[in-house]
């Protein structure tokens, strides 16, 4: 029984929803709402990137570029074009999807390291545009973002953002789980293991890689929009190379191919620096060391490894 429950992905999401619902009872200050929001938004982007990396097995080192497109859509849209922030979120997603389609078509023909470098170039390109188009984006100093208004209610309160971002994350996670268990999900997992076998079974490999790339770009854009709206401020650095690396680390650390793993990876990477903050000088050393140890001793990532051990312990 316990095993069947564990195998069911929906069960894992239910546990995560429960943790999210109960956690605020133990928050000593409103700061933790803010941290929760940051975790959920990062997790949303990681869940999306996992579709590309974990399912389809294609690496992207430039996903912060799509994150930046979403963030600046809700910043520039309302400020320059007087678009409502909620509408700007969707414009951002559409824009990210269109860019992913146009960029993905040529570069997804590349494999392995070549694809990594091409996506890296894309990420740097977006970050340079955001930095240099100062008249619209405020340049490297960043810009303020208008508050999101939903049904006459201004989303500003830290607790409100905690619940809102948690809801979006859970919906995003359910959608990703749906995908894994669908014909498209099987096609993506198949081409991950053997492109040639996928192709002879009728799978249009190039098309499905592009589908995964566009889906993951939509997630990143939505996450970027939420981050900009919840902070009410955005800088090009938040869409830079380091952000791309963070997202990749979350997916790999949590466990490639696992939706719950991506969420755990995001929570781990977002909260660890806070926990280590007391160590001051050695904070970054410890952070790096912990990541290395996890990868050495839990090569499949946090969630798959722990789930397997738990399953063995409780048959």
């Amino acid at each position, binding site marked *: 029984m316990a095993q069947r429950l564990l195998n069911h992905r929906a069960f894992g999401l239910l546990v995560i929803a429960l943790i999210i619902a109960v956690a605020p009872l133990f928050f000593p200050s409103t700061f933790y709402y803010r941290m929760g929001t940051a975790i959920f938004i990062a997790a949303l982007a990681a869940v999306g990137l996992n579709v590309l990396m974990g399912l389809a097995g294609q690496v992207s080192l430039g996903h912060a570029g799509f994150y930046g497109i979403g963030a600046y859509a809700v910043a520039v849209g309302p400020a320059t074009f007087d678009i409502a922030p909620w509408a700007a979120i969707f414009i951002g997603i559409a824009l990210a999807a269109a860019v992913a389609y146009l960029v993905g078509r040529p570069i997804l023909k590349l494999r392995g390291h070549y694809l990594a470098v091409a996506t890296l170039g894309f990420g740097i390109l977006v970050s340079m545009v955001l930095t240099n188009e100062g008249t619209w984006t405020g340049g490297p100093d960043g810009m303020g973002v208008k508050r999101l208004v939903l049904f006459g209610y201004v989303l500003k309160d830290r607790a409100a953002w905690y619940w809102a971002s948690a809801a979006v994350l859970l919906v995003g996670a359910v*959608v990703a789980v*749906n995908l894994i268990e669908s*014909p498209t999900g099987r*096609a993506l*997992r198949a081409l991950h*293991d053997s492109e040639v*076998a996928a192709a002879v*079974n*009728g799978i249009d490999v190039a098309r499905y890689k592009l589908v995964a790339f566009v*889906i993951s770009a939509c997630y990143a854009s939505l996450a970027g929009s939420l981050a900009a709206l919840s902070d009410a401020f955005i800088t090009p650095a938040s869409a830079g190379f380091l952000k791309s690396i963070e997202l990749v680390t979350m997916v790999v650390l949590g466990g490639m191919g696992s939706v719950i793993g991506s969420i755990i990876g995001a929570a781990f990477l977002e909260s660890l620096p806070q926990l280590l903050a007391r160590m001051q000088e050695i904070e970054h050393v410890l952070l790096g060391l912990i990541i290395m140890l996890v990868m050495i001793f839990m090569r499949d990532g946090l969630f798959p490894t722990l789930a397997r051990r738990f399953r063995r312990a409780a048959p």
Partner: protein
Amino acid sequence: MTLLAVDNIAIQFGGVKAVDDLSFAVEKGQIFSIIGPNGAGKTTLFNMISGIYRPSRGRVTLEGTDVTGLPPHLLARRGLSRTFQNLQIFYRMTALENVMVGCHLQERRSVLAHLLALPSVKRQNAESRDRAHALLTRVGLSADAEKDAGNLSYGALKRLEIARALASDPKLLLLDEPAAGCNHVETEEIDALIQTIAQDGVTVALVEHDMKLVMKISHRILVLDYGRKLAEGSAQEVRQNPDVIRAYLGSQASVGAAHAGT
């Protein structure tokens, strides 16, 4: 009726002519076997027919339509499916899911419906699962359905590939050494399986080293040597062809002696 026709096909890798000016035709409902020494160009030929390599010359015709150079996924839509000599298994999926991938072309492929898990997708998944279960039973792997493919034995994986290839409901099935590395019992099982596949109306093209298997089940045999046709005909004709005996089995040997040891 001719299902597959290969006309004057050729391919070179660097200066090496792996297949040179080869022509043959496969009739519907036949088991058509291709034999030849290692390096004769058998797998290369399969790779050209299934769209993985593009021939540098010649033509491949499927049901009267020129399909030369079509990519594999479009050939699959025209009813061509295959297995691989060096296994190409989806190791991170269960045996059942491997076969469900083979159902891809029968499935409706609306990504939006998949993301939202519409009721039609659940029905679709159930249909594919039933179909995959039936095929696993057919190849004798029903007990292994929920196992990760990576945990199956070599012989089981060979049969898993056949089940997956059948899932697309092919008209022409290319089997690349389905019995290689299998023991005597497994070979007999695969032998019986191939015959039932052909009885169901699927045309089978077979590359195989096990001479006993080939001689027993083939309607027609093509012998390759250095990328060229050495002989073609029934098992009886090929067995008695002096060129075949000389090139394939050594000048003093006979086919009977060759498989006496196996």
